[in-house]
Structures are given as C-alpha cells and as structure tokens.
C-alpha cells in the first residue's frame, strides 16, 4: 500500500542523477577530455565494481549483525567459498560465470547454516572470537588441501571472465570494454541483492530477526522459533557472502588464500558499523566509504600549501573511523537521516516559529510590565534517529 503515491519530483531528480552517475559517469567518463573535473579513469571503474561487491557482503552481514544481533568475524570464509567455487568451476570445469555465482552462494549459505547451529550457544564476544577462528583457519585450509584449490599460487580466472558481448556495440553503437562490462555485471548483481535484502528485511522473517535481536525471550513468547530464525539469518548472510565471493572472482580475476585473510572479515564489520547497523542504505554507504575514504588523503594535495605524509594514510583512515564513531554513532546512514531532516523548508519553519515565540513573549512583556510571563514551553520535537536502531 505504501507505493500508491508517486514519488515526489525532488526524489525523481535525485534518482535520475544517481542513475546517470552509476550507469554513465563511473564507466564512461574517461571519454571526456583530459582535465575535466571528476573525470573517472579505468581504475575508478574498477573501484566501482569493488564497491558493488563490497556492498553485497555488507548487506548480508548487516542482516546477521544489524538486524539479528549476531556478531560474525568469519565472513571472509564465506566470501572465500564463493570466490573459490566460481574460480574452480570456471577454470577447471568450464562452467558459465552466472551459474558459479549462484552455486557459490548456495554452498556458502549451506555452510553458514551449518555454522549457525553451534553459534546458537554463543553470544557477543564469544561468538565474535569463535567466528574469527573460522576466518583465521580459511587461508590455512585453502593452502593445505591444494588438490582442489591450487594451493598458495591461487587461481587465475582472468581468461575465463565473461568478455563484453558484441551485441551491445551492434545495437547501441557504444564500445564497452571488458572492465566496463564487469562493472555493469557487478552493479546488476548488487542491485538484485539489494532488492532481495529490502524484501527480506520487510518480511515476516525480517521482523522475526529484529524481534530476536531486541529480546530473545520476548520473541520466544510471541511464538517465534529462536533457533530456526537465528540459523536462517546465518544462512542468508553466508549466501550473500558467497555471491559476493563469486562477484569478487569476476572483478579481480584472481583468487588466492591470502585474498581472504581475517583482516577482510574485520573490514566487513567495520563497513556495516561505519555505514549504519540495521540499515540497507547504511550497507551501501559503508561499502562506498570503505573504498573511498583511503583515497581522501590524496585530496589534501589539492589545497595549496597543505600536505599529508603519504606514509600516514592508514593512520588517517583510523582517525576517520574514530571520528565517525564519535560524531555519528548511528553511522553514515544516521548522518544521512539527520541531513535529510534538515531540509531548507524545515529550517525556515523552525526559524519563523522561534521568531513568533520570541515576539509573542516580547508582546506579553510589554502588555504587563513588571510581571513577565515565562515563555511557552512548546519546543520543537527532537530530531533524533529512531530508537529502534542500536
């Protein structure tokens, strides 16, 4: 029933700009003349693909951690399963890429379901460290059992990654390079997973996740099977990890045990907390932030006279994490929420009502000098983000 009203014109404009940016500017702006502001090269297109892949993991992890309240530091393992499934099937068995991504997601989801069962007994930091063990073990397992995984040398997927099809050039007259084609693929997969996530979160299952997060006992009393939904959350989340892994294999074109070390898991958790827990928008913003923020120190060079030693770029990143957590405890999504509420019309309204109040108070003071009335107490309601988010 929500979508019966057509979106407002301002929203349509925002969507149009966003679509233009994602579908044309990121892949094709390199055709613009050299020195054009914000002109993106091939590396930026690659980063766009990485953001898409990263957003898929973030969506999945956010369903588990943000909506269901189970902390996982083991998601690099699920991404590894997806990545290796895609790489092995494409290189050694000649499967088409789309089938390997789906199968990788299903295998990772099954693994997630199996891990979700023992995880039922653990909570908070104990669960975090147990899943961190999974992430630590993954590279070792991949190296040790090299009959299937090709061991430490990894698998080069590049020759088997789908090439840009000819029909696009025939039909539209645009030459799309292979990297640009991969970007569109990654963007498309991420878009599908985004729609899926929105629907899961709004469904009965999604509401059960949130109920369990807020109080397991209360959820149980409402007739929600806590073990069932907790393992389902793990399975869905791992499925997202697997799909992201398959996408990773296409985007990067190479998988190796060290591509999936535990630091990746920690970065995933950072992504969703920085983006905003229990927020779909937050997952996407977090993924974008994680890829873009390490690039920001380079921007300081544009300010004349200012410079940052390049060896300190990681410290800059750490400081950015701390500052976001201090000034935006609900992450980038919370910040976005607050910005949206600060619409110019709103500010004008607030100002005018404040003016009315002060002039009203003045008038009453003038009317009865000597016994000033206290100003009316109707303050504007506070613009805090929803208490539902943790």
């Amino acid at each position, binding site marked *: 029933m929500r979508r019966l009203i057509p979106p407002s014109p301002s929203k349509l404009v925002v969507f149009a700009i966003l679509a233009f940016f994602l579908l044309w500017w990121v892949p094709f702006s390199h055709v613009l003349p050299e020195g054009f502001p914000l002109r993106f090269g091939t590396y930026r297109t690659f980063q766009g693909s990485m953001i898409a892949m990263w957003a898929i993991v973030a969506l999945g992890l956010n369903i588990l951690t943000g909506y269901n309240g189970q902390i996982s530091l083991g998601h690099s393992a699920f991404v590894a399963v997806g990545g290796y499934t895609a790489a092995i099937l494409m290189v050694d068995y000649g499967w088409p890429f789309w089938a390997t991504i789906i199968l990788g997601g299903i295998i990772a989801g099954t693994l997630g379901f199996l891990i979700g069962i023992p995880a039922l007994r653990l909570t908070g930091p104990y669960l975090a460290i*147990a899943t961190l063990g999974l992430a630590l073990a993954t590279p*070792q*397992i991949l190296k040790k059992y090299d009959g299937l995984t090709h061991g430490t040398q990894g698998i080069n997927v590049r020759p088997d990654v789908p090439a840009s099809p000819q029909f696009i050039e025939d039909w539209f007259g645009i030459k799309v390079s292979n990297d640009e084609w991969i970007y569109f693929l990654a963007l498309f997969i991420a878009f599908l997973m985004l729609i899926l996530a929105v629907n899961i979160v709004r469904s009965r299952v999604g509401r059960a996740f949130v109920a369990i997060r807020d109080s397991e006992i209360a959820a149980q009393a409402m007739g929600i099977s806590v073990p069932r939904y907790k393992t389902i959350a793990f399975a869905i989340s791992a499925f997202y990890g697997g799909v992201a892994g398959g996408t990773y294999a296409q985007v990067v074109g190479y998988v190796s045990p060290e591509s999936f070390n*535990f630091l990746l898991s920690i970065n995933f958790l950072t992504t969703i907390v920085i983006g905003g827990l229990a927020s779909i928008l937050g997952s996407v913003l977090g993924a974008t932030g994680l890829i873009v923020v390490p690039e920001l120190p380079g921007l300081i060079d544009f300010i004349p006279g200012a410079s940052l030693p390049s*060896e300190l770029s*990681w410290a800059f990143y*750490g400081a950015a994490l*701390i500052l976001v957590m201090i000034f935006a*405890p609900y992450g980038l999504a919370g910040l976005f929420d607050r910005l949206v509420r600060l619409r110019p019309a709103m500010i004008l309204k607030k100002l005018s009502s404040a003016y009315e109040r002060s002039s009203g108070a003045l008038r009453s003071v003038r009317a009865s000098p000597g016994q000033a009335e206290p100003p009316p107490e109707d303050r504007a309601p506070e613009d805090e983000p929803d208490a539902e988010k943790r």
Partner: protein
Amino acid sequence: MEEFWQQVVTGIATGSVYGLLALAVVLIYRSTGVLNFAQGEMAMLTTFVAWSVLQWGEYWVMFPLVLIIAAGMGAFIERVIIRPVEGASVLNIVIVTLGLFAILNNVATWRWGGIPKGFPAPPEVEVTGIRFMGEGALDIGPTVVSYHDLTILIFAVGIMLALYLFFQFTPLGLAMRATAQNPVASRLMGIRVGRMLTMGWALSAAVGAVAGLLIAPLILLQPPMMIGVLLFAFAAAVLGGLDSPVGAVVGGLIIGITENLVGTYTPAEWLGPDMKLTVTLLIIVVVLLIRPTGIFGRRTMRRV
C-alpha cells in the same frame, strides 16, 4: 618423551605471553565490556619506545620507565578517545579500537620503520646465589629450559599474583572491581567511576607492555609483531572466560601447549604444523560449545 617435555615447556613459555596479553584484554573487558583490538598495538608501540630508551639506558632503568609510559598512554587513550564514545553500543567502541589499531600501527611504522629489529631479553640477575634470567638454558631433568622462557613464566605468574592481591586487598583495587560490577551503585558509594575506568586502561596497558617486552626477544621487534599474539590472546581470554583474570592466564597456557603438541604429534600429511592454528581454534570452539562463557567465566542470568 624428551621431545614431548620440550614441546610442553616451549608451549608454557609462549602460552605465558598469550596469557599476559589476555590478562590485559580481560582487564579492559571487565570494566567496559569491550574487546580492545588495539591492545597488541599498544604493547608493540611501548616496546618500540623501550627499544629507543635502550639506546642510551640500562635494561632495568628502561623497564619501570616504559611501564610508566605505557600506563600514561593507556590513561590518555581512555580519556581522549574512548571517553567520547563511552555510552555508545559495544560494536561502536570496538570499531574505535580498530581505528586506534590502524593509527598506532601506522605511527610505529612511520617513526621506527618496518625493518625487524633485535630486542634484548632481560639480563642476568642473581638473588642469593640462584641465577635468574639472561642467556643460556637450565637442565631440569627431562629436558632443558632456556632462561628466557623461565623469565616469561615467572613474570606471568608474578603479575597475576600481584594483580590478585591488588584487586583483593587494596582499596583502589576493590573500587575498580566495584566499578566493573555496578557503576551506578559505585558512584553512589562515592567511587569516582570515570577515574577508575582510566586506571583500568592504564593498568591494562602496563600489563600489555610487559607482554610486548617479553615476546620481542623471541619474535623480532617490528610493527606487525603483535597481531598474531593478540589473536591468540583473544582466544585465550575467551577460553578462560572473559571476566576471569585467572582464566586468561590458564587459557593462554592451554593454547600455548596445545599449539605445540598439535604441530608435533598430528599426521603431517593432512594436518601437522601447517594446520596447528586451525586445530587449536577448533579445540577452543569445542570447549566453548560445552562451556559457552569459557572455563572460568560466570554465567549471566537473563531476565525478561
């Protein structure tokens, strides 16, 4: 049999270091409920400071000086970086400690460079004719123990004992425990809760610094040196029970010994030294499944 004892003794030594860092982790966890991911990097940075101090000073002059510097750094971090997010959710504070991790690691690389440096073990000390610390090894019947391994064990046990006495019998220690248990009631009793939290971080940083000083001679001094140790320390703290200091040290010892035995005695074809980390972690997970809050951990009551 000699090899078995050799492995056990080596395991005890590395396990003691895991235990010490786990102790530091537990000290912060008990008061704030946060796993401090920057604990290892704090220890690494103080060890680098120690290295710089050693360029002009004696070992036993450096030792107390570095502990004071470490405590000051811990207090500073709590006041300036952790205090602003005190009321936020646990995950937020965890991310702040990850940010701290990045900063400390980067600053150490920037200031001291990434090339591994040798770091001295504590020099020889003689007390009433018995020799402690220094170079060489001691024959203890079934096997030999290097003096440095003994030193590590002595320090771990000594620090645990000192902390036990501190928390059990001194007014400050009792106040800190009270704060960890119930901040609101403690404040009502006139304890300065904020100050106690700062003290907790200072104490934890100092204990971590000892762990760094003792492990540095075994694994060369370099910026990433504490990452592996910290992961084992986390595992040790979780295995022992996150709110139990005794559990931290016991957990560290168990992990140190298990790791060595798994590396030596499992078939090398499909397990062996390459998989010792994986098998050790698997054992920890199995223990956690039987006791979800660790071996010495308190079970929490749940109320609706």
